[in-house]
């Protein structure tokens, strides 16, 4: 690991240089919010932000993505043969991703990069991407990353972690991919003595996180008893069953496959889907295993805070970015639900049924 100092003039110059080898993405201001977008050459990402409205998960996992192409024209030799859609997996870098969003990519990776089966679209996009993180010195009151297995200076999933020192950035180069990007940008002013400053800033930033959740009891709570807990109707009542929480969540990965035909040529695409939508699970017979709103809301929270915990033993499927808290139109708050789940005692369920 190398520690580099990048003065802010050199920052802009470096990004312009790196743009020759990388397609750059970064947060830019879009009306009242920030959004990750492709940067034009010379465009500097706006790093003076809190969290973007949507997470940058779509850079690797687009909301709609063509995966297969085919022709239905029977005069063509290859009609009805489904082929992998041509994609561009040339090197790209996402500049200014927050540690929470970078960690989220690692959680999603457990799904798309399983030991026995890989999603080639996700994985190739992931492998093509260099993650250049911006540590978070001004967290929001709804951020709870430090108790969600992450933190404002968490380096997991990052190739470079930067912090803002006013005049310059300090950059921790964490991987070979990160080093390659620093080389491409011409950033080479090593300042190993700045390690202490980094640590101090990390401690200061972590102290600013005022919101926390407790997850210590989730592992040992019985899955079926938690599933049958009496609080789910109350939790779910306000829910509109819209997709805001799942679409804004950096760790939600569920998707749909759809065919679309135009004339004689067609594509199959992956579209984001949501466990909040009734049609997500409905069978062709009309039977729906998760017929009610309560069942669907429970699925979302149980998946994040119990099923995932049990399945992968790497903690919860949430990085504490707070987007769902801030954006839910009816203020369903995962922190409140997590508290209910973590403090759940099976006896409660018995009493409620009794």
């Amino acid at each position, binding site marked *: 690991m190398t520690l580099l100092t990048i003065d802010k003039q050199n920052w802009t110059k470096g990004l312009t240089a790196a743009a020759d080898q990388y397609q750059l993405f970064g947060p830019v201001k879009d009306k009242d919010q920030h959004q990750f977008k492709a940067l034009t050459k010379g465009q500097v990402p706006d790093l003076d932000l809190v969290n973007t409205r949507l997470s940058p998960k779509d850079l690797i996992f687009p909301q709609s993505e063509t995966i297969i192409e085919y022709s239905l024209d029977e005069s063509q030799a290859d009609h009805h043969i489904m082929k992998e859609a041509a994609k561009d997996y040339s090197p790209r870098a996402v500049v200014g991703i927050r540690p929470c969003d970078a960690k989220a990519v690692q959680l999603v990776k457990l799904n798309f990069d399983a030991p026995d089966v890989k999603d080639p679209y996700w994985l190739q996009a992931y492998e093509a991407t260099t993650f250049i993180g911006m540590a978070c010195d001004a967290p929001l009151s709804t951020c709870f990353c430090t108790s969600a297995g992450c933190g404002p200076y968490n380096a997991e999933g990052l190739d470079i972690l930067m912090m803002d020192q006013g005049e310059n950035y300090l950059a921790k180069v964490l991987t070979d991919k990160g080093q390659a990007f620093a080389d491409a940008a011409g950033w080479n002013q090593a300042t190993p003595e700045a390690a202490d400053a980094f640590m101090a800033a990390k401690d200061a930033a972590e102290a600013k996180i005022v919101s926390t959740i407790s997850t210590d009891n989730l592992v040992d709570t019985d899955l079926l008893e938690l599933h049958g807990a009496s609080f789910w109707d109350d939790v779910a009542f*306000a829910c509109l*069953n819209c997709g805001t929480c799942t679409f804004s969540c950096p760790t939600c990965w569920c998707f749909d496959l759809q065919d679309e035909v135009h004339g004689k040529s067609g594509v199959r695409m992956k579209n984001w889907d949501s466990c909040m939508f009734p049609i997500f699970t409905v069978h062709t017979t009309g039977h729906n295993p998760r017929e009610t709103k309560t069942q669907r809301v429970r699925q979302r929270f149980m998946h994040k805070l119990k099923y995932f915990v049990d399945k992968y033993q790497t903690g919860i499927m949430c990085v504490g970015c707070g987007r769902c808290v801030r954006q839910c139109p009816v203020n369903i708050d995962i922190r409140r639900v997590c508290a209910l789940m973590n403090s759940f005692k099976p006896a409660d369920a018995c009493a409620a049924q009794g």
Partner: protein
Amino acid sequence: MSEYTEKMRQIAGRLLKDCTVEMVIGFRKGTMPMMNEPCFVTAPEDADSLVWDSNCGINLANYLTNRKEKIAVFAKGCDSRNIVNHIVENKIQRDQLHIIGVPCTGMIDKRKIHGMVDGEILEVTETEETVKVRTADAETLLDKKEVLQNNCALCIHRNPVISDEMLADPVEEQTDIDRYADVRKIEEMGDEEKWQLFEDLLAPCIRCYACRNACPLCYCPTCFVDESKPQWVGKGQDPIDIRTFHFLRAYHCAGRCTDCGACQRACPVGIDMRLLTRKLEKDCQEQFGWEAGLSLDSRPALDVYQTNDPEAFIK
């Protein structure tokens, strides 16, 4: 507003205690500034969780659809008009409901307030006329009139049109309101300009369907966008599919929309889809003299045939 909260708790407690109703639907305090969460109360002792302030913009009629219990519901002017719609459209029975009318002076728009102050908003308090916003390093006093939801600023039915009891005396209705200035402006544009306007308006849409799901009118068991036989709309992010969803959804609400603003309020990306619904509202008024949800005795304009219906569109 705190008097409202006090009275609400009393009424809810009374109705539950004397078994007039099985549940009361209202709001509880949210976990963030400018947010309250719709909730239900079934035990009299829980009535104290109810609150009321200018952050109760979600339309509670949406929570009545197909319910079987006897329910007390707090209803602003717009909520009450949607309850009328619900009763007329058989989504709930009148005798199931105990409607507690809430005279309303408008709900505040958190997006507007976010746009008016720098930094994260930590606390918002309000009086009759003002809204005080506290951030980490400043306190700003805003005129409540300036930060109302757009639909509230244009509202001409602030008092409930139907109720079993009222929470307070009626408030003064706003008069001399021009509800359609922005709609007329679009009507006067050229075709290309119009097309582009909606292209830009809908560009941020992520198809989360919060607008549809927050709308009390959108209670179809399967929405046309979710149909597979036949599939009317593509499911991806193509702009044409997104536009088709928004304009057809608006059309399905024609003559029924009360401009409660729930759609715009719920939208996580800040789209003003009311530009579509209010165009239809305006046409309904001009062509049929119709305003939705004012009476239990008449059906929505597009639901009935009258011999004097305009038919200039048939050539």
